[in-house]
């Protein structure tokens, strides 16, 4: 098992190197001169040049890349051009917002997709199945920002049951956190729940036709028990993979959802950094997002290997 984990980790190294190159090259491609921005309105060309020199912007590209990579490996993501703060500090402060949003969205999507997928998958062709299938198609097609705005309109403006926007930290107030997280998490989780429902429905249909399920039913095991003990358990394995893949799009989706609901998370940071051309911040956000995504997918991989020994290389 340890060898398996090590192998997986080693396989990540070339991937992360390519990613780091891509992220670093953003700096080279971006138009505009951050030195001008830093120097302020009344700067002379000499002052701008001095800042360029101090920032090491006159060094060869390879030197700059290695220096940057060295910093990243030591947790130094640079300094924001906009707020003069260490990028890592800003990200770490905002990470809990995004993570609690994404996690709640995942929980919501499981809470929706498991019952829906089981009901549809155990009764293929029934009215319930057709409704679930249509519902999941609609769930995939509705743009999440529009869903979010409709929820705000109906549940925050017309009926002021939830706060329209904002965020309360879990540590400050549990109720406040819950009230603020419900609408955005539902908005973010809906498309994931649609995909998971479709996946689970398909897997359930297949599993229910398997011999061991038929045997179990023939043995006279209660239907409910057959479904939960045998069918769902086996159908759940591919769901873990899908869930891992969905983490990526969920992290991306936070950009829009945080914007609509005014949540001070990573996604909002990413968008505002584009508008302020705060490159180190954009790089930091991308690196952090890739890091989380890679970590989640690694965990999915490992759990897969753990549950299914066949995957483990000998």
């Amino acid at each position: 098992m340890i060898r398996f984990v090590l192998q997986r980790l080693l396989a990540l190294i070339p991937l992360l190197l390519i990613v780091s190159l891509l992220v670093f090259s953003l700096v080279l491609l971006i138009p505009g001169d951050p030195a001008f921005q830093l120097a302020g309105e009344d700067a002379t060309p000499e002052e701008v040049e001095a800042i360029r020199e101090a920032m090491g912007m006159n060094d060869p590209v390879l030197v700059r890349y290695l220096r940057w990579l060295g910093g990243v490996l030591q947790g130094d993501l640079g300094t924001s051009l906009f707020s003069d703060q260490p990028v890592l500090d800003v990200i770490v402060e905002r990470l809990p917002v995004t993570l609690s949003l994404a996690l709640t969205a995942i929980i919501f999507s499981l809470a929706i997709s498991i019952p829906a997928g089981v009901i549809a998958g155990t009764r293929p062709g029934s009215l319930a199945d057709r409704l679930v299938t249509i519902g999941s198609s609609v769930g995939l097609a509705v743009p999440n920002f529009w869903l979010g705005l409709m929820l705000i309109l109906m549940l925050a403006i017309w009926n002021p049951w939830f706060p329209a926007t904002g965020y309360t930290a879990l540590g400050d107030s549990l109720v406040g956190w819950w009230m603020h997280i419900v609408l955005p998490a539902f908005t973010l989780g809906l498309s994931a729940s649609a995909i998971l429902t479709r996946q689970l429905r398909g897997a359930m249909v297949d599993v229910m036709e398997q011999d061991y399920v038929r045997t179990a039913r023939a043995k006279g095991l209660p239907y409910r028990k057959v479904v939960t003990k045998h069918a769902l358990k086996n159908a759940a394995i591919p769901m873990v993979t899908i869930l891992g893949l969905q983490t990526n799009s969920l992290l991306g989706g936070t950009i829009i959802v945080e914007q609509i609901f005014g949540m001070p998370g990573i996604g909002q940071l990413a968008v505002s950094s584009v508008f302020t051309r705060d490159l180190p911040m954009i790089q930091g956000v991308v690196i952090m997002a890739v890091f989380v995504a890679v970590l989640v997918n690694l965990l999915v991989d490992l759990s897969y290997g753990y549950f299914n020994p066949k995957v483990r290389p000998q």
Partner: protein
Amino acid sequence: MSRARICQGLGAALVLACTACGRYEQYDPVAAETDPEATARFAVATGVTRYDPHRATSSYDNTWLFPVYDRLIHMSSAGDAVPGLATGWHYGDDGGYLELTLRRGVRFHDGTPLDAAAVAANLERAQSIPGSAVRSELDSIEQVEIVDDHRLRLHLTHPDAALPLILSDRAGMMISPAAFDDPSLDRRGVGAGPFRHLEFRLGNRAVYERFDHYWQPADAGVRRLELLLVPDETTRLNAVRSGQAEGATIGTLQIEQARISGLKVQTGVGLEVSHMQLNRARSHFGDRRVRQAINHAIRREAIVNALGLGYGQPSVQPFPEGYVAFDAALGRLHYDYDPHKARALLAEAGLSDGFSFELIVPNIPAFLPLFEAIHAQLEAVDIEARPRMLEGAQISERFYGATESDAALVTWGGRPDPSQTLDLLYTPGSLPNPGGHSTPEVMRLTTLARRQIDPTQRGVLLRAATREVTLEALDVVLSLPSSTFATRPNVDGMQVWASGNKPEFRGVTVRR
């Protein structure tokens, strides 16, 4: 020592403070009493560049600096110079020097005495530190003479009537000399203001605590003051509605929503100017007739009514009605909406087929409708405004620095003294006047207004300069936008200052 009133005749029109705000008041003002230990949290739209006031580059930094740093001179909510750290000031030797008398017994937060030597050291630092953003404002000071512990004379190269109000800005903020060389000064200010600076976190939050030895204790009405940077206006309003903040700056579109939620709303017009600034050395903007044509093509009142929902003051002058530099004879709408006149003026200038120019537009959602309205109205007289969407810092880089665009749709943040605005926008040699175009008469009047230390005569000169700027159509002023603050119903003392969207928190209190 008599108080020098530089600005006068500034009526209630400047700050149209909203009086009908308490409609949904939930608290009984008598039963609930002010809580001296309260915390006030305020959400604002723009961050701070640095806590060193001499090197802070944006005028919107003031919001974050005011609590920490006291200034030599204060500006009243109507825009007048009133005593601050200096209890009085007068010119001597026909404007050859400005003598300041300092308040006695004042100390910085770190205990350093605030005396004439400290002030002299500050002014010297402001003039000499590399990267100083206030150096040009203090240009006229040739030498600072310490008369005694509490008096100093600023010897001037020429009489400078703008100086008192300049000293109510960042140039007049006093830093403790003991902190001059502290590298953390950019992040943590040490001044003599009503609040001590506790912490500044991650560019989006600052925490201040009441300074118990402030010379005017009532100014520090709460125990703790917190400023939060929240760029999105919806989020700001919601922070107040949900009680995460006691107050916030909001947009005019949100006023109704804030009132319905039971919040207090203060709204008023300050010294900010919404304008389409022209580079008069480019396109056809060197021709007065073209500039006048554009001014006639804009339907200012409709724009303010449709886009600002009626808040703000449509105007062709860069100063609000009733202000010392506002020329009442010309009025707010000297250039009325008249497309026919605009076409006639264009034909006169040999442009009967119209022309096209590049217009920089900030890529902020709020500016899009404004741009589109302007675009359509200019199109109606065959002028095409080609948009170039840029982010804030790039606008200064491209429009003012590289002077490579014809015009920009921007907001002028305003300056404490009207001659500063006239100087910077309409005379050569300043960054905010790309192209450096002016007219001899505008330059003459502006210089005279800058040097005239007699308040009455100065008022006449200021108004004459504004009149000349307006008649020459050096600018396409659209409106004087309103600044709006929403506070929770138990917050008192919040007001709209002349500086507009740079609120001070003096005298703000919170009831239990």
